[in-house]
């Protein structure tokens, strides 16, 4: 059977962009690969249905980001699906050989520690940090995606980075427990 233009275009988009979407979803979910995969599948299925609208949009990538973020916000609103639990202290985590003393450079931090720190952030705060600093979206674009004001984006991003700084660098407990060196994170807007 000859594939339709929609199928061809959609397949090409998935081939080229799926991994990037999945990596973003992994950050939004603080490293939950199963939830990230669910979000990407949901987002891509919605995109297929809306493909005529995707064609009319200015950017398929921007459309995909919006659908993914909406799927994420929908997901975290469901209490029964909340797979992340907020804890008052970072758990002890095994170290990795390449990030111990003498390995990985002075600012190296284990991925597990970072994922745990990301999981500490409220969902929308985490999304603001990821959208601004991973996807390099502007404050305006981020506000549009999160359906909030630009001021909220700025404050949420700043608070998110400060919280990460506290968890990863400023928190003596975390660094001593995990034998990590400090990671300096810039303030929002720097």
């Amino acid at each position: 059977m000859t594939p339709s233009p929609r199928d061809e275009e959609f397949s090409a988009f998935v081939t080229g962009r799926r991994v990037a979407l999945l990596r973003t979803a992994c950050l939004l979910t603080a490293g939950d690969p199963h939830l990230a995969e669910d979000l990407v599948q949901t987002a891509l299925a919605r995109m297929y249905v809306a493909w005529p609208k995707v064609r009319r949009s200015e950017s398929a990538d921007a459309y995909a980001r919006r659908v993914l973020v909406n799927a994420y916000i929908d997901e975290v609103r469901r209490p029964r699906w909340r797979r992340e639990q907020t804890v008052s202290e970072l758990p002890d985590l095994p170290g990795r050989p390449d990030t111990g003393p003498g390995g990985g450079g002075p600012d190296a931090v284990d991925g597990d520690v970072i994922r745990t720190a990301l999981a500490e952030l409220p969902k929308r705060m985490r999304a603001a940090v990821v959208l601004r600093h991973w996807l390099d979206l502007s404050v305006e674009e981020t506000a549009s995606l999160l359906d909030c004001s630009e001021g909220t984006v700025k404050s949420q991003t700043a608070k998110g980075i400060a919280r990460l700084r506290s968890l990863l660098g400023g928190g003596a407990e975390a660094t001593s427990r995990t034998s990590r060196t400090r990671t300096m994170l810039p303030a929002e807007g720097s």
Partner: protein
Amino acid sequence: MNDVKDMLAAALDRGPDPGQPVNPAGDLARGRRLLRRRRLTRLAGAAGVAGVAAGIVAAVLTLGPAGQSAPHQPPAAGQHTRHQHAPPAPGQHPARRAIKLVSYEGYQAPGYQVSEVPRGWVVQGANAFALTVAPAGDPDKSVDSFTGKIAVMLKSRDEPAPKGQPNLQVAGRPGFLDRQGDTWILLYQDKAGQWVDIQFPAKLGWDAPQFAKFAAGVQVLGNAQPGRG
């Protein structure tokens, strides 16, 4: 160097690997299934099995297999392709008799107010996501079925606000009118600032001012919700 970005990149140390191969077959199959379900939902009204079967045939004939309805290429980055069909000018369809808009004082569905309807049409009903206006006596009573009806809804949350030059004014506010197959789609900003999406069957035979006039008489109230996709 963005240190936050470096930190986020480190959080992806367990993957997925940017270079990993992708097979789109699974996503394609899921997309097709969702599209099929959406079409069936819209087609499945109170008309019964025979009506549903006829509707499916009609949809397939109208839309073709998934995606064959619009065989053009996706836009390049930054390219804006809205309004591939210019709105019909007044009197553009001399061979087709337009159904006249008349004042409406009948049943109003919760969440919406409609002041004018095509002659002989009525407000069918509404749910949280859409209102349908259909010919009186239409056997398809389902408000989830839009075939041959006017459907009013808020713009999908997944669709970004339209950009570019509006090609229509609805009560002095920007509107974007576009044709997809046998459906005209009007997207406009109402006086409350929300984007409203109205789908019209082309069989109405209307021109741009008539679409705008109908839209100007529609109010979407606070309890309506935007859909997805």
